[in-house]
């Protein structure tokens, strides 16, 4: 059994153990969960040391790493096919890290803990699987496996409007994924395995244009398939105007789940486009890139503007995610090294930054039991450490140099500017708006006179620092020295650009 399989399925093993534990034994449940997320993290970190930076992956099985290839449903061309390349590996690693951290962010879950941790572990398997799968069917299964745990995690442990948020999330994403299902089937029936001549779900075979049937060479057909896939992914990103599930889901979800939602799930949309849409239909990707750039621009600005109008701290963070994902879209749309690597780096860095932001909101919500931005004030006086860490998170979101978000955004701009000048410049206005809403929030929450209600508010505790500090360190570390991550990505992504005409 390969490492990727272990990483993917150890959480499920953990889930089974958790389910077998008695309900009352809280600590055992927590620590088993921690172990079940920590081991994949360790393994993923080990794989990082083994990662060969010179192999591209994308559409060539021999340059994928940690490949596992097994028969599953041979009668229908379905395989268990996992592997990592520079596009997926950073996301896998990030997923294992955030999952581990989120176990600790979930320490204070106050009801039905057993169910919570079991579902959480199942969710992790789904997430890692999505990033590792190279068989489209497998990808789809993992993609959908995430939905159920997410529905319950939001619906049972969420905030006051949890039911609404949960079903909204569920319906939206299901709507997207069924379209993806159809596109997947259409691709399946028009792709043949060059060796056996049978249809195949193997993504890499789908990427080889010579395996496509004549029907799949018709331009209109390719557009339709591309759009179907794109809507599926765009909902996850979430791209304007498919974004309205996000503020609800993020706001109502418990802290750790918001972290996972924003940190990992959103990335799956853009990951899917890069992993599936681009290499399989490169010509369509190239000819529709302008629209993608425009949507990226809209996301950046729209998200930022709306974030500024929010009164709810968490909602503000949620809309900021929309804005930041716009950078990914913009970077992806241009097919230049800087743009596309910037986009993927933004996926990674936003994963850490937004995770911090949600953890930050979680800390204050646990204490004040509300999230009204106007209802705080002067917390910097009573909670200096918390304020410090929060400032790191907020400034990272703002794109301050020395933090990873800055590197990603500037790379996106550098990459996008030569291709779409006007769009890039309009998008760049986003950095001003972002500064405005972040600083305004910072001011209203942490600065000014202390709200007398919070005279005795306790300082952030060790566990909470433990959840936020590694992310803060990473943000700064990769902001100053992004090479480790960029090296992971660059061979694959440069190769990806070459595929696109």
């Amino acid at each position, binding site marked *: 059994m390969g490492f990727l399989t272990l990483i993917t399925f150890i959480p499920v093993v953990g889930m089974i153990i958790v389910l077998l534990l008695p309900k009352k034994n809280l600590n055992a449940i927590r620590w088993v969960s921690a172990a079940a997320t920590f081991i994949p993290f360790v393994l993923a970190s080990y794989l990082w040391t083994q990662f060969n930076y010179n192999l591209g992956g994308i559409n060539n099985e021999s340059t994928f790493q940690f490949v596992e290839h097994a028969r599953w449903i041979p*009668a229908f061309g379905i395989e268990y096919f996992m592997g990592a390349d520079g596009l997926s590996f950073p996301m896998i690693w990030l997923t294992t890290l955030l999952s581990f951290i989120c176990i600790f962010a979930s320490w204070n879950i106050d009801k039905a803990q057993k169910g919570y941790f079991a579902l959480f572990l199942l969710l992790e398997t789904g997430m890692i699987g999505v990033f590792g799968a190279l068989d489209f069917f497998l990808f*789809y299964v993992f993609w959908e496996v995430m939905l159920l745990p997410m529905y319950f995690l939001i619906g*049972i442990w969420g905030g006051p409007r949890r*039911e609404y948020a949960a079903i909204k999330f569920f319906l939206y994403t299901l709507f997207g994924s069924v*379209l993806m*299902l*159809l596109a997947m*089937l259409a691709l399946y*029936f028009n792709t043949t395995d060059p060796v056996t001549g049978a249809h195949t779900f193997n993504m890499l075979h789908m990427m080889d244009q010579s395996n496509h049937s004549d029907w799949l060479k018709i331009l209109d057909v390719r557009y339709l398939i591309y759009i179907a896939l794109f809507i599926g992914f765009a909902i996850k990103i979430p791209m304007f105007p498919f974004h309205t599930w996000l503020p609800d889901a993020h706001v109502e979800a418990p802290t750790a789940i918001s972290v996972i939602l924003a940190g990992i799930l959103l990335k799956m949309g853009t990951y899917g486009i890069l992993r599936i849409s681009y290499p399989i239909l490169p010509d369509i990707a190239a000819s529709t890139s302008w629209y993608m750039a425009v949507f990226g621009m809209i996301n950046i600005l729209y998200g930022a503007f709306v974030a500024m109008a929010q009164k709810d701290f968490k909602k503000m963070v949620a809309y900021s995610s929309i804005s930041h994902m716009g950078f990914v879209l913009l970077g992806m749309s241009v097919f230049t090294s800087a743009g596309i690597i910037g986009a993927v780096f933004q996926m990674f860095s936003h994963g850490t930054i937004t995770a911090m932001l949600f953890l930050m909101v979680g800390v204050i919500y646990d204490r004040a039991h509300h999230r009204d931005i106007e209802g705080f004030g002067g917390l910097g006086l009573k909670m200096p450490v918390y304020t410090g860490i929060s400032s790191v998170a907020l400034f990272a979101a703002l794109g301050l140099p020395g933090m990873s978000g800055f590197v990603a955004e500037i790379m996106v701009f550098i990459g996008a500017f030569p291709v779409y000048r006007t769009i890039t410049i309009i998008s760049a206005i986003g950095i001003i708006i972002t500064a405005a809403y972040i600083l305004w929030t910072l001011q209203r929450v942490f600065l000014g006179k202390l709200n007398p209600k919070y005279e005795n508010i306790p300082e952030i505790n060790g566990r909470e620092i433990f959840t936020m500090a590694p992310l803060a360190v990473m943000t700064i570390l990769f902001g100053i020295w992004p090479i480790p991550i960029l090296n992971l990505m660059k061979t694959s992504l440069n190769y990806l650009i070459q595929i696109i005409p």
Partner: protein
Amino acid sequence: MDNVSSIKFFIPELFLTVAVIAVIIAGLINKNKNKFLIPGMSVAALLGTVILSFTQYEMGMNSLFFNMTVLDPMSVFFKILVAAATIWIVLFSLQQHMKVEYYILLLITNLGMFLMASANDLLMILVSLEVVGLSSYVLAGYYKNNMKSSEASLKYVLYGAASTGIMAYGMSILYGLTGETNLAAIQQQLLTQQPYNLTVFISIILIFAGFGYKIAMVPFHFWVPDVYEGAPTPITAFFSVAPKAAGLALLIRFMTTVVGHQLAPGAAEWLQNMDISAPLLIAILSVLTMTLGNTIALQQKNVKRMMAYSSIAHAGYLLMAFVVFNKEGYAAIMLYLVFYLLMNFGAFFIIHMVAQKLGSEDIETFYGLGYRAPFAAVSMAIFMFSLTGLPPLAGFIGKFYLFAAIINGHWYWLAVAGVLNSVISLYYYAGVARAMFLVKTETKDAVSFQTFDKILIATLVIPTLVFGIYWTPILELTMRSIKLFAGN
């Protein structure tokens, strides 16, 4: 094949017939002294039938009784399916202490469905449908002291009788056009004579009234919600799967043999001459069926009735794969039926268990069930999401193959309509999960179910999970069953 030599291919049916008689006699002798005797005998009879049917798998294509029925792997598949379904129903009714007639009727229905699955002649179709119908009417009204049950029975019998009559009228016209009653011969005659096709069309639509009502197809579905709601829940579960499966077998055989254009070259042209080809007609009907089922299901507060509409929707999904008129589509239908059996039975059984304990089938009854009866609630949630078609549950695999079949047949708009319906259906299926887990209730006291029931549920939950991940055995079974069908 003549009658005598046909006998050896007719052993399962004969066995079942003998078993029915044996059960009747046992019932007379036993007089309810041993409450497990009759169910035990029924299960044994059905198990025996299943085993005997399995031995027929390798017998290939056989026409029996002067082409009245056929024995081919497809019919065997459906026989095993309905017999297995009946076993579950019998086991599930154990707690009810039903009278001996109940079991006898179930067995007779079974026999009727066997005949439906292999009927190859208009006469046989008529007779088998009536056998199933007559016993079903009684089963629906089995709780004769219960107003709802009686009402269901009345509605069923009136609706069924009318439908059968209409179908018979259609058959008579078809007979008149061709002078034949054997399906293959009818097709032969149609091809050679090429009669005015509107007449053919009308006759086929009239026959559809008979098939359509069995499989709950719009616009012949109206009886479904009322009868399903009123009938005893095990019987509802039974209706939702077994007769539907047999009806589909019949429909597949009838349509492919009489108008299927895969079968005979030339038939296609003739079909094309008809303004509305059969595939398009069925496609439209399937979309109507699932949309109607799903949208009305959204409105239901009674879970059992909701499941009735859900089963209409699923009939629509099943019909969807029918439009491609090829083996792939039929295999997808058969595969789906297997998984549908598991999850639908599971859902109805749990509804039944809950209604027994808490006295109602309303959605309110399910509030907070996740904390009061975790096993049942989790199982119910699994069935619900499996019905929605979410991986990694069996229902997804079923839907996956349905969509695969129609995508491969380039029916894209149909596929889009199908997936959108899936999304709609999530709303009410998730509604049940929501009621069980998301809604907080005052009462927290545990609801305990009998171990036997739990085991029974487990026999449905486990395959639902396992087949969601590894379904090759079922896939191969369906492929093998359909291989000989349709000649090529």
